[in-house]
C-alpha cells in the first residue's frame, strides 16, 4: 500500500488519507537504516537502547491515559444521570409543594375573607367583594360562554416526525385573541382551562407549550367567560372568532362557542408584587392563624422577564 509507485497524478487529500494511513516517517526511518547498514555505518550506540526506553515509557503513558480517560468517563456518567434524575425529582417535588401551598393559600384566603366579613360593615364587604370579583381575586359565578379550541388531529408520525408539520395547532396568539375578544364584548371574568385571568396575566408560548401565567395548559383549551347574555353572539361576530373559524375550516382545528349557564370561575393566584409594598403592616395580633407570608418558601419565578 505504501509502495504504490508510478503514480502520475496527485490525489486529493482525502484519497491520500484513505490510501496511505501510515506515517511516511516509518518508511523514511527504515530507508535511512537500510542506507546506513549498506554504508557500513553503525547507528550511534547509545541512541538505540535509550530510544527503546523512551518508547516503553510512552506506552506506559498511553496505558495511564487510557485508564484515566476510562475512569473519568465512568465517573462522569452516574453524575450526569443523577443530575438529570435529581432535577426531575426537584421539579416534581416543587410542583407538589406548589399545589399544597396553593391549597393552603386558598384556605387562608377563605379564612381571611370570613374574618374580614365579620369585622367590616355590610356595605364595605359588598364593595370589596365586587372589587375582588372584577380583579380576578375572588371566585365568581354566573352565566356566560365557553369557547373550546383544540389542535387538529396530527397525522405526523410520533417517532419519525414524518408527515409534515401540523398547521392546525392552537397557538398562544389564538388564545390571546380569544381572551381579548371576550374582554371586548363585555366579559367580566375569563378563565383558560380553569386558570383565571387577571389584568396582569400572560399567555405565552414556550417551545410547543402554551403557558398561562407561567403555568402550562394543554389542549383542548376551554376559555370560559362570564358576561352579559348576548356576549356569545357578539363574540361570534368578532374578528378573532371569524379568523379562528376560517382557520378551523382550513386546517381542521376545532373551534366552537356555546352558551353556558352557571359557570364558576375560581380565583386567580395572588398577584406577586414586584415593586410595591403594602403600606400598612399587617398586625400579628389577630387570631391564631399563621401568617401566610411567614412560610417563607414562596417560589419566585427567576428570570422570567415579562
Amino acid at each position, binding site marked *: 500500500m505504501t509502495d504504490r509507485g508510478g503514480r502520475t497524478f496527485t490525489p486529493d487529500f482525502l484519497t491520500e488519507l484513505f490510501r496511505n494511513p501510515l506515517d511516511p516517517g*516509518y518508511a523514511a526511518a527504515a530507508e535511512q537504516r537500510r542506507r546506513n547498514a549498506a554504508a557500513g555505518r553503525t547507528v550511534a550506540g547509545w541512541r*538505540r537502547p535509550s530510544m527503546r526506553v523512551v518508547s516503553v515509557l*510512552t506506552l506506559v503513558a498511553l496505558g495511564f491515559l487510557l485508564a484515566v480517560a476510562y475512569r473519568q468517563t465512568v465517573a462522569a456518567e452516574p453524575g450526569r444521570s443523577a443530575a438529570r434524575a435529581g432535577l426531575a425529582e426537584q421539579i416534581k417535588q416543587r410542583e407538589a409543594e406548589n399545589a399544597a401551598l396553593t391549597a393552603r393559600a386558598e384556605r387562608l384566603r377563605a379564612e381571611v375573607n370570613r374574618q374580614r366579613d365579620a369585622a367590616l360593615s355590610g356595605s364595605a364587604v359588598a364593595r370589596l367583594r365586587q372589587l375582588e370579583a372584577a380583579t380576578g381575586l375572588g371566585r365568581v359565578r354566573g352565566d356566560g360562554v365557553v369557547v373550546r379550541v383544540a389542535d387538529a388531529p396530527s397525522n405526523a408520525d410520533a417517532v419519525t416526525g414524518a408527515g409534515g408539520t401540523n398547521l392546525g395547532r392552537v397557538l398562544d396568539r389564538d388564545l390571546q385573541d380569544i381572551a381579548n375578544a371576550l374582554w371586548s364584548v363585555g366579559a367580566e371574568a375569563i378563565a383558560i382551562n380553569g386558570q383565571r385571568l387577571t389584568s396582569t396575566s400572560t399567555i405565552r408560548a414556550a417551545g410547543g407549550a402554551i403557558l398561562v401565567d407561567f403555568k402550562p395548559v394543554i389542549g383542548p383549551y376551554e376559555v370560559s367567560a362570564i358576561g352579559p347574555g348576548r356576549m356569545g353572539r357578539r363574540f361570534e361576530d368578532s374578528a378573532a372568532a371569524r379568523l379562528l373559524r376560517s382557520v378551523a375550516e382550513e386546517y381542521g382545528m376545532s373551534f366552537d362557542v356555546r352558551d353556558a349557564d352557571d359557570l364558576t370561575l375560581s380565583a386567580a393566584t395572588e398577584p406577586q408584587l414586584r415593586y410595591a409594598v403594602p403600606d400598612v403592616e399587617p398586625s400579628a395580633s389577630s387570631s391564631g392563624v399563621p401568617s401566610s407570608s411567614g412560610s417563607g418558601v414562596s417560589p419566585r419565578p427567576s428570570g422570567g422577564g415579562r
Partner: protein
Amino acid sequence: MIPVVALLVGVVLGVWLDPSVPSALQPYLPIAVVAALDAVFGGVRAKLDGIFDDKQFVVSFISNVLVAGIIVYLGDQLGVGGQLSTGVVVVLGVRIFGNVAAIRRHLFRA
C-alpha cells in the same frame, strides 16, 4: 512482550493512582485518547511491516496528542470546538481503520 507489559503497567498505574483531571483538561481527554490510539496502531502496523522505529513512534505519539489537543483548543476559542473535534476524530478514525486493516491483513492474511 515488553510493550504489552508497559501498557499494562500504565493501566495499573492509572487505576492505582487515580489522578483527578483538572476540569479545564477534561474535554481534551477523549481526543487525546483517539490521537494516542492512532499513534499506537500506526506503530503496530509498522512493527508488522518490519519498519518500526522507536523515535518515530515516540514523536508521532506526542505530536499526535499535542496537535489534536491544540486543534480542539483553538476550535473552542473560535467557537467551533465541537465541529473541529468531530473533524479530528474523523481524520484519526480513518487512519486507525486503515492501519487496523493493514494489521488484519498481516495477521490473518485476509
